[in-house]
């Protein structure tokens, strides 16, 4: 599970390089995300542009990351592909997460304008 990190301003952008977050890699994803979010900026953005497939294990891992990050910092998502967006909307998790069309929109808008 490959994740790349880019701190820009007050945002830590973590980009998923793998094209699947599924049962095969959900635990590794969760563990690596914990390492990458233990410290650093208070705003964390997960760029999922490369992720073409997310199953319920992957969804659970993303939820776990949000819980790990906690309520004192923000954890937002960007770049959901059609398959991934469908999983979020079917489970109504799209009402729980702040989801941006892409990383640029997330940085440009800032927290307050996110939908």
């Amino acid at each position, binding site marked *: 599970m490959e994740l790349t990190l880019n701190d820009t301003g007050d945002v830590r952008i973590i980009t998923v390089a793998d094209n*699947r977050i599924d*049962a*095969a890699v959900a635990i590794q994803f969760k563990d690596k995300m914990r390492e990458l979010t233990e410290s650093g900026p208070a705003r964390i953005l997960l760029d999922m542009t490369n992720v073409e497939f997310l*199953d*319920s294990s992957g969804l659970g*891992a993303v939820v776990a990351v949000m*819980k790990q990050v906690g309520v004192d910092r923000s954890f937002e998502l960007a770049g959901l592909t*059609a398959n991934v967006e469908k999983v979020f909307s079917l*489970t109504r998790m799209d009402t*729980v997460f702040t989801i941006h069309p892409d990383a640029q929109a997330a940085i440009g808008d800032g927290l307050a304008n996110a939908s």
Partner: protein
Amino acid sequence: MHPEQLVFVGNAREHIGAFGTMDNSKLHLVFPGDQMSLRGALAKSKTFLRNLGFSQDQIGPVELVLAEAVNNIIEHAYSDDVHGVVDVSITCVDGDLLFRIMDDGLPMPGDQAPAGMAHDLNCDVIDLPEGGFGWFLIRELTCDLAYTRTGNRNRLEFRVPLTGRTT
């Protein structure tokens, strides 16, 4: 022996191969119950559907349902100590996609497929569910789902309605 005539035996590693019959209407896959083999089976399934002319919009839900159903088999029907085989058939009949998934693992709890109730997400972040979405997704995306068990073989059958169809 012709692969189609193999007696389906759990743990029968000598019969495991990624054989698939891809005539124009049916795909039959038998593969070990592990995550990497599942990825391979999903890839073959997508190729089969693409070759039949299905769009990504139609293929996406199929991949998800197959992944959820087989993940359940890997995690619950089989276990860390018991490695088994998964048998997947996808049949296209009159533009409808029919699925049959079989395994020789433990029965489903209560001998029935889980209802897959939706979660109430109106809670604090710390209380959000991290699991239990699988059967909900399967139920949302399929019709005519039926679970049967004969001897020590589980059989899950369902239909994935294509985009634009409500039945």
